[in-house]
């Protein structure tokens, strides 16, 4: 394809040989980025298609039951499109997803997308608060451990990290409920909010903390916040273990560099060396790590939601699962998958934008 404006510019430009716009490195990077996204999306939908439509023995039989007559069964097969070739079925499935059509949930009898929009904010609230907590605790922990490498602080941070990696979060949640709710009664029990506060705040974003704060219902805010603390801490344990470990190893890399020695020789204070020099470089690397954590908490909250009866997407998926509500399961999986992939790619992209070395 030739662009008329480009042709006129060719003569005007002098020394660097003019390359067409589409060959510019940034454009190529962007094209590659888009290519990766679409490829991952196609892969994700292909796998969920296989899981939802190909693996189950007979979706039509599952709906009509084994006492239905042959005609009813055939009609259902045609209605579901099971008589079409597999590739065509996938194409229909893909175009439906692109239009936001995930089918209807058997359990709630609403479109799956509507359900997801209702349930997703609760998960988002939980994962966001946990990530923020994980960052604000994990990053200083990692920095401290790196600065005092091999000393007591370092060992304590390592043990905490090891615990966060190894503990089954759903079990930790149960133990926390036992201690802090049943025995000590410091925090409210499962659920998002006390029943008598239900309906006071009109849902706008679906994130109760945000909605109640915007509408000035501080009592509701307080109650919702208290409910949030335990489940969010469980997820934060995992988040801070990962973040602290990565921060520590990034920080150690930086502290062994020569520019740190230079800064020390110049007579800068230890605090300035650590926070202004070393940490500035670590911060950029942390973007990817925080993105990864956030994405994994969005999907990892499934078990925590079950323990704390938190009405999020994870609970929606597991509940649908037990009701053999395949549309809902697949819809939820695709949406969580898109968020997961999207956050990872976005943090990768952001990293390249911020770090001049990666450009």
């Amino acid at each position: 394809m030739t662009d008329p404006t480009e042709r006129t510019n060719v003569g005007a430009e002098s020394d660097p040989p003019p390359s067409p716009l589409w060959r510019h490195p940034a454009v190529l990077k962007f094209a590659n980025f888009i290519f990766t996204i679409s490829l991952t999306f196609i892969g994700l939908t292909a796998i969920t298609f296989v899981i939802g439509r190909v693996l189950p023995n007979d979706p039509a039989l599952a709906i009509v039951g084994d006492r239905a007559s042959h005609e009813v069964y055939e009609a259902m097969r045609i209605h579901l499109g099971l008589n079409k070739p597999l590739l065509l079925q996938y194409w229909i499935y893909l175009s439906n997803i692109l239009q936001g059509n995930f089918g209807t949930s058997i359990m709630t009898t609403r479109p799956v997308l509507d359900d997801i929009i209702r349930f997703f904010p609760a998960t988002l609230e939980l994962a966001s608060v946990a990530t923020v907590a994980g960052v604000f605790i994990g990053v200083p922990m990692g920095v401290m451990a790196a600065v005092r490498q091999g000393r007591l602080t370092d060992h304590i941070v390592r043990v905490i990290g090891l615990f966060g990696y190894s503990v089954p979060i759903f079990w930790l949640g149960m133990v926390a409920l036992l201690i802090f709710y049943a025995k000590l009664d410091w925090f409210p029990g499962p659920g998002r909010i006390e029943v008598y506060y239900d309906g006071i705040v009109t849902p706008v974003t679906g994130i109760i903390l945000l909605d109640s704060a915007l509408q000035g219902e501080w009592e509701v805010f307080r109650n919702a916040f208290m409910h949030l603390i335990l489940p969010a801490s469980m997820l934060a344990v995992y988040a801070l273990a990962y973040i602290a470990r990565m921060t520590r190893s990034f920080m150690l890399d930086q502290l062994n560099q020569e520019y740190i020695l230079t800064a020390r020789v110049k007579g800068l204070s230890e605090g300035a060396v650590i926070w202004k020099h070393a940490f500035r470089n670590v911060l950029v690397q942390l973007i990817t790590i925080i993105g990864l954590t956030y994405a994994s908490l969005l999907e990892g909250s499934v078990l925590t939601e079950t323990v704390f009866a938190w009405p999020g997407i994870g609970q929606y998926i597991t509940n649908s699962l037990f009701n053999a509500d395949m549309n809902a399961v697949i819809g939820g999986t695709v949406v969580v998958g898109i968020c997961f992939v999207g956050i990872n790619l976005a943090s990768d992209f952001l990293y390249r934008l911020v770090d001049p070395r990666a450009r």
Partner: protein
Amino acid sequence: MTIPDRSSFTAVKSWLLSDTPASALQARCQRFYLGWQIFRRNPIALAGFIIIAVLLISALFAPLLTSGDGTNQTLSNRLQAPSLAHWFGTDQLGRDIYERIVWGSRVTLYIVSLVAVIVVPIGLCIGTVAGYLGGWVDNLLMRLTDIFLAFPRLILALAFVSALGPGLENAVLAIALTTWSPFARIARAEALTVRNSEHILAARVQGASAWRIILHHVTPLCLSSMIVRLTLDMAGIILTAAGLGFLGLGAQPPLPEWGTMISTGRNFLLDQWWVPTIPGLAILLVSMGFNLLGDGLRDVLDPRSGG
């Protein structure tokens, strides 16, 4: 092994430390011995090793360590607190929890070894072929790997199990499906670093086929980093399996799987805390053991990537 008298002990030691190994076997034993020497000095790794050794022993000798097979119900004896007769108490069906934990170690080992047996060959195969052949094969295989790498693990495993139906084998398949991709990445990275080394060139000059080189010359060099990664991944595999079991999608009762035990014991949390708490401690301990062991093995086998 029996401990021989002093003189043969020093003979073995000098054989292990000799500067000029006479055979490939001796060289291999020497490497193993030196690795063990490094490993032994690391108390953290040793702790992990002991935990995993205990797991292996309890799985192997479960019939000797307990009097039943973990499914004996004694309803008159239900929900007993931990005592001398029942070290960890009994559950809602009067089954001894210590017994179930010991037999559950078999289930845990069964899950992790099955996943390892599926995941490592697939990862090795895809990774070494991609890394050694390069070109469009590499591009295609790595795009595929990246797609799987980008997926949310637990949710995908959930959907997979829901399609195939709950059960131990399906849980293993689901976990394997979401676990193999990092192994392919590692194998590819290793294959890339060795593909132009001299011993590979020598083999190629001798007329060895690509398959022979990949199988006999590239794959063995990938093994150590695969083992490290596998050990570090074990904790994740155990936690995912326990999570699936907790949701009722993994092993089915009465099989003494630890995650399932937590799930069925959940209703007794408030009054009989030991029923769901003890299996959770077992999971915590074993996955901690694998993490510690993996860190230690990394220091011995793969010192480059130490963190």
